[in-house]
């Protein structure tokens, strides 16, 4: 049995349920990642939002690796568990770039890889202002079976997810997505609003629109003097709401889906962040319930470490 990080094979393997003999290889790779994680010092100070973006970018040179998971109920079909891995890198203090790899399991159906997304966030203003804008650009190459519901746009609804994986994956989506992220932090409260416009590159689909809004606050504003895992300042709680706004031909709330989701994040001193968000559909077009959770780890100084490995400056 080979124990190697053959990512190509791993990617192919997740299109089926992993045979038991492959698991040691995957475990080996995950262990290698965990060991690598210990080589970096870091501290996460993450917002609890899962859908909404605030105006804070990744620190320059830091890499954040995240895994997110969503369990969703499905009327008229099988419930599903969707997931994505996210690699977020702070290229500069004003530019963050991210790569997502998406997949999903539909119960009583199959587990499939559903595509990837590449997004960029750019901060046009140098300083803090009353409202802080960030520009967001995304290219996505996903199949119709993608169910991560990272954003709701146009007339997206529960019925879209009821097809079998075999059928849904035949549809390919090449899409450009633009967002204007507005955010403000005041007296510990963060308020964020995102407006979304998406356009399919292939086909003649109209522009689609969506929104996400969120508010959050740490449970304590002052830091305690000692390092602690369960101090109140390590927890951030909030609420987010997101949904579609129709398309260019039928803008508005008609035939759209909307969700309300409490969110909580636990920033651990061990440099990990856990997020949890039960989401509730607000109308008949929405999934009745979405349970999202995620775990992330920030690798501070990732860029500098890689630079040193490649022969740069050694401190």
């Amino acid at each position, binding site marked *: 049995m080979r124990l190697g990080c053959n990512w190509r094979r791993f990617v192919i393997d997740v299109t089926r349920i992993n045979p038991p003999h492959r698991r040691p290889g995957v475990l080996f790779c995950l262990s290698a990642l965990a060991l690598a994680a210990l080589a970096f010092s870091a501290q996460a100070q993450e917002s609890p939002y899962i859908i909404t973006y605030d105006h*804070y970018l990744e620190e320059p040179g830091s890499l954040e690796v995240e895994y997110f998971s969503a369990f969703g109920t499905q009327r008229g079909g099988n419930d599903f568990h969707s997931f994505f891995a996210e690699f977020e*890198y702070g290229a500069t203090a004003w530019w963050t770039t991210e790569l997502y790899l998406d997949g999903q399991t539909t119960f009583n159906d199959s587990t499939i890889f559903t595509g990837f997304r590449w997004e960029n966030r750019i901060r046009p203003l140098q300083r803090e202002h009353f409202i802080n804008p960030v520009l967001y650009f995304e290219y996505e190459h996903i199949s119709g079976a993608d169910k991560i519901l990272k954003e709701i746009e146009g007339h997206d609804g529960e019925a879209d997810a009821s097809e079998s994986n075999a059928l849904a994956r035949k549809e390919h989506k090449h899409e450009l997505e633009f967002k204007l992220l507005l955010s403000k932090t005041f007296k510990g409260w963060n308020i964020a609003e995102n407006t979304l416009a998406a356009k399919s590159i292939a086909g003649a689909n109209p522009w689609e629109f969506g929104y996400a809004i969120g508010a959050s606050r740490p449970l304590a504003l002052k830091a305690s003097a000692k390092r602690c895992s369960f101090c109140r300042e390590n927890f951030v709680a909030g609420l987010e709401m997101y949904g579609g706004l129709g398309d260019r031909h039928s803008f508005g709330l008609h035939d759209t889906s909307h969700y309300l989701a409490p969110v909580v994040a636990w920033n651990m001193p061990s440099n990990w962040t856990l997020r949890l968000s039960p989401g509730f559909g607000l109308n008949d077009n929405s999934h009745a319930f979405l349970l999202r959770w995620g775990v992330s780890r920030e690798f501070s100084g990732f860029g500098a470490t890689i630079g040193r490995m490649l022969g740069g400056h050694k401190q």
Partner: protein
Amino acid sequence: MTLTRTIKITAIFRTALLFILILALSLPVPLISAQKESAAVQKDESVYAELAKAPKKAVARRNPMEHDPEAVAAGGKLFDLHCAECHGETAEGGRKAPSLRAREVQQATPGTLFWILTNGVVRRGMPVWSKLPEPQRWQIVTYLKSLGPAEKPSE
């Protein structure tokens, strides 16, 4: 089916390559000029010029944590978590960021330091830290002021 999968894998690898390229492009600081930059950051006094840009109202702000007995310890903890990576564990400067024990910083008012912390110096690579609640930013300022100037001049 196999063809579709191959196309998908190719697309993933193309994107991964693009992502790696972006990483590589953003690496020139540590990779090419880290040594020069390290020395430059330490000696380039213009990095402290940002302090002079703080508005008068911000400069005059008083530190509400000044007399909090726990503020120095809490600020030290926050400094270790968020600042030491760039400014060094002893705040005497690192590869990417200048010494915070330089005369310019230590003589600046708490309000000035709070303003810099809140707004960052995005052009020079320091992110905004307004995501830390105000009391935590003041705790960091209290800690920085408690350090005093470095014993040896940084030149």
